[in-house]
C-alpha cells in the first residue's frame, strides 16, 4: 500500500516539470490554464495529504484487538463541523471566480479577429479560408486572434486543440464559435528532410504521425474531435499550423486553393488528393469494402441499383449529381447521410474526382485506354 502511495506522490511530483502534465503551451490561454490547474491541484494536495495521512495513521494507531472499547465516544462537535463545512467554501469561491473570469475571456472574441470557417462532418474537418479554398488543415497567424465559426453537417463534433487549451462542440443546427491566439509559430523542417519524406511517402496519403510535420514541411499542433461521432471518431484528427507572417499564410492558401494551372498535377492525382483531404475517404473505400457509403472500386461506369428501385449508370453526370445533390439518388443498402458539396468543389475539382474514380475502375481504365485509341464501346459490365 505504501508503495502505491509513493507512486501517487511521484506522479504529483512530476508537476514541477509541466511538460509531463500538459502539451506544449502554444496559445495565450495556455499559461493561464496551466497555472490555474496547478493551483487547484496543489490545493487538492493540501487537502488530500492530511486526509490520506490521517486515514492510514488512525487505522494503524487505533487498531485494537477485538472487544476493546473505543477511547472516546464523542458524538459531535458542532463548531468543528461548521468550521470544516464552511472554511473550504472560500477556496471553492476563489476557484469559481478565477475559472469564470478566465472563461469569459475565452468567450469574448477580440475585435478584428481573423475568421476561419469550420465545417465538421463524419469524419473530417473542412476549414474554409474564403474564396472557395477549403482544406482539412487549420492554418493561422501567430500573435493574432483567430475565430473559428463552426458548424456541423451531420452529428455533434468537438474541436479540441490541446496545445491551445481550447475546445468547443460543433453542434448541427447551431453555430458555435471559438477563438484563440497562438503565440508560438510552427517551425519549418529543412527542405532536404521534407523532400526525402515526400519522396518516401510517395502518392499515399500523408502520414502525419510518422513524419510529425505537414506535407508542406511545417511542424504542427494536434487538432482532435472530442465528441464521440461514430465509427472513425478516433481518426477525426487534423493539424494546426501557425504561420509567422501573413505572406507565408497567403502563399500556403494559394498553393492549396486549386489544381496548379501549369498542368504539373494531373486531374486524377488532384482527384486523389481531394479524395483524401475532403472527407470522401471516411465513407468510400477504394478496396471494395463496404463503409458508410458504397466503395469507389469498380463504381465508375457500372450500373448502380438505387433505393427507389431504379438503376442508373455511374457515369460522370451521375458522379457530379451525387456530389452536389447526394440525397437524391441513394444506392440501395445505404443511408442518405452524405452532405452536399455544392459550392465547395469547383467544376475542375469535380472533374478531377471523376478522373480519379476512372482510375480505380476496370471499366474506367478500359474506357480511358480505348478513348486514346479513338473508339468507344458500351461494355455492359453490369452487376446487380
Amino acid at each position, binding site marked *: 500500500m505504501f508503495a502505491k502511495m509513493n507512486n501517487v506522490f511521484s506522479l504529483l511530483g512530476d508537476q514541477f516539470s509541466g511538460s509531463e502534465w500538459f502539451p506544449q503551451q502554444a496559445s495565450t490561454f495556455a499559461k493561464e490554464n496551466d497555472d490555474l490547474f496547478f493551483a487547484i491541484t496543489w490545493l487538492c494536495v493540501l487537502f488530500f495529504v492530511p486526509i490520506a495521512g490521517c486515514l492510514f495513521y488512525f487505522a494503524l494507531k487505533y487498531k485494537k484487538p477485538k472487544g476493546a472499547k473505543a477511547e472516546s465516544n464523542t458524538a459531535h462537535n458542532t463548531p468543528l463541523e461548521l468550521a470544516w463545512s464552511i472554511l473550504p467554501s472560500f477556496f471553492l469561491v476563489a476557484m469559481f471566480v478565477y475559472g469564470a473570469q478566465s472563461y469569459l475571456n475565452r*468567450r469574448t472574441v477580440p475585435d478584428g479577429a481573423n*475568421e476561419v*470557417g469550420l465545417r465538421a462532418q463524419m469524419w473530417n474537418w473542412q476549414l*474554409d479560408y*474564403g*474564396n*472557395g479554398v477549403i482544406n482539412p488543415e487549420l492554418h493561422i497567424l501567430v500573435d493574432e486572434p483567430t475565430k473559428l*465559426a*463552426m*458548424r456541423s*453537417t451531420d452529428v455533434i463534433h468537438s474541436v479540441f486543440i490541446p496545445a491551445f487549451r481550447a475546445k468547443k462542440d460543433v453542434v*448541427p*443546427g*447551431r*453555430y*458555435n*464559435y471559438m477563438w484563440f491566439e497562438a503565440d508560438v509559430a510552427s517551425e519549418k523542417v529543412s527542405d532536404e528532410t521534407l523532400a526525402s519524406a515526400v519522396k518516401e511517402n510517395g502518392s499515399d496519403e500523408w502520414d502525419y504521425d510518422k513524419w510529425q510535420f505537414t506535407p508542406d514541411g511545417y511542424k504542427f499542433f494536434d487538432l482532435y474531435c472530442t465528441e464521440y461521432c461514430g465509427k472513425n471518431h478516433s481518426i477525426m484528427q487534423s493539424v494546426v499550423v501557425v504561420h509567422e507572417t501573413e505572406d507565408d499564410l497567403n502563399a500556403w492558401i494559394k498553393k492549396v486553393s486549386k489544381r496548379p494551372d501549369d498542368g504539373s498535377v494531373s486531374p486524377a492525382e488532384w482527384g486523389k488528393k481531394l479524395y483524401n483531404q475532403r472527407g470522401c475517404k471516411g465513407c468510400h473505400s477504394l478496396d471494395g469494402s463496404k463503409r458508410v457509403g458504397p466503395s469507389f472500386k469498380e463504381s465508375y461506369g457500372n450500373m448502380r441499383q438505387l433505393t427507389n428501385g431504379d438503376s442508373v449508370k455511374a457515369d460522370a453526370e451521375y458522379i457530379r449529381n451525387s456530389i452536389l445533390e447526394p*440525397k437524391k439518388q441513394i444506392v440501395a443498402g445505404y443511408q442518405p447521410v452524405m*452532405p*452536399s458539396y*455544392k*459550392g*465547395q*468543389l*469547383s*467544376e475542375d475539382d469535380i472533374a478531377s474526382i471523376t478522373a480519379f474514380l476512372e482510375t480505380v475502375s476496370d471499366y474506367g481504365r478500359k474506357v480511358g485506354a480505348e478513348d486514346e485509341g479513338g473508339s468507344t464501346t458500351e461494355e455492359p459490365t453490369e452487376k446487380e
Partner: protein
Amino acid sequence: MSTIEASPEVGHDDHGHDHDHDHPAFLAHHFDTPEQQFDSGKLGIWLFLVTEVLFFSGMFCAYAIFRALRPEVFEGCSQFLNTKLGAINTGVLLFSSLTMAWAVRCSQLEQHKGLVGTLAATLSCAMIFLGVKSIEYSHKWGMGLLPAGLFAYDPSNPHPTDHPNYLMYICIPFAIALAGVLLWLVVSAGLGNKMHVAMAMPLTVVCLCFFVGVGLGMVLESGDETAEHIDVHADPNGLASAPVMLEAEKAAAAEAAPAIAASGAMVSVDESVLEILAGDASNTGVTSGLNALEQQNAAAGTSTITGDEAVVGAITTTEIDVMTPTTAGVFFSIYYCMTGIHAIHILAGIGVLVWLLVRAVRLDFNRQYFGPVDYVGLYWHLVDLIWIYLFPLLYLIR
C-alpha cells in the same frame, strides 16, 4: 378491529407464523393496522403521481422551448385542431372526475350499487373521450398532418381520399372488446351466473360508449365542415405567416440572391432554421457565425456558382421547407406525443377502473378498506388535470 364484521378472519398468513391473529383478510401480513396499510398506499400513489407529473413535464418543457422558438408555427398549426371536439372532451373528462370522486365516497359509505354505477359512468366517459379522440386523430392522419418525418399535408389538396380508413383501424380493437363483453354477458346470462352478469352489463354499456364518442365526434366534425373549409383557406395564411415573417426578417439577406443561393446550397438543413436559431438569444454566436458564413459564401459564390438554375432552385426549396414538414411538423410531433401519451394514460386508467368494477361487484370494499378506489381516483384526477392543461395549450392559445 372488532368493528369489521364483513371480513372473515381467514388464516391468510401463508407464512404461517403465529402472530396477530386478528389480521383481517384485506390486511397484508407485513402491516400492523389497516391505517398503516392505507397510509402506505396513499403515500405510494402520491409519489407515483409525482413521477407522472415529472414524466409529462419533459413534454411540457419541449412544448415551451419550441413555442418560444417558433411562435408563428404554433399559432398557425393550432388552427388545425378542432376546438369543439377538444371542449367536448374536456367536459367529458371533468364529468368523469365528478363520478370518480362520487365513487370514492360510495365505497367509503359501502353503497355498493352506487359504487358500480359511478365506476361505470367514469369508464363510459373515458370511452367517449377516446371515441372523440379517434375521430380527431383519424381526421388528421387523413389530412397528412403528422409528425415532422411523416408530414404530408398539401394545402392545395387538404382532404386527399387515397388514404387508408384510419378510423376503422382504431375502431377494430374496441369492436372486438365490445363483442367479447357481449359474449360474456350472453354466456353468463345463459348460465344464470348473476355476479358475472352484474360485471358484464356495465362493461357492455362502457364499450358501447366508445362508439357513442365516435358518433359524437363525427357529428361535430361534419357540422364543422363549412367552418373547416374556411379554416383550410385560412390555414395557408396562418401557416404562411411563418414564411412571410421569415421572409421579412431576412429581407436584407434576400436582396443578395447569390449569397442566399450559396448558403442555401451549403446549408443542407435549411437556411430558415438558422435564421430562427439566430433569433434565439441562448444560441450564442449564431448571428455572427451566420454573417460570417454569408460573407464567405458571397466571396466563394463568384467562383463556384454555376448558373441561374441553382439560384432559383435554392430559393424555392427554402420556401417549401418553411411551409411543410420541418417546421409545421414539430407542432404535430408535440401534439401527438402529448395527447398520445395522455391517451395511453386514459387506457391504463380504463384498465384499473375495470379491475375496480369487478372488485366492486364482488363487494370487496368496505368502510375499512376502500384504498384502491381512493388511489385510482387520485390517478384519474391527475389524468384529467393533465388534459386540463393540454386543452388550452394546444387548442386555445393562438
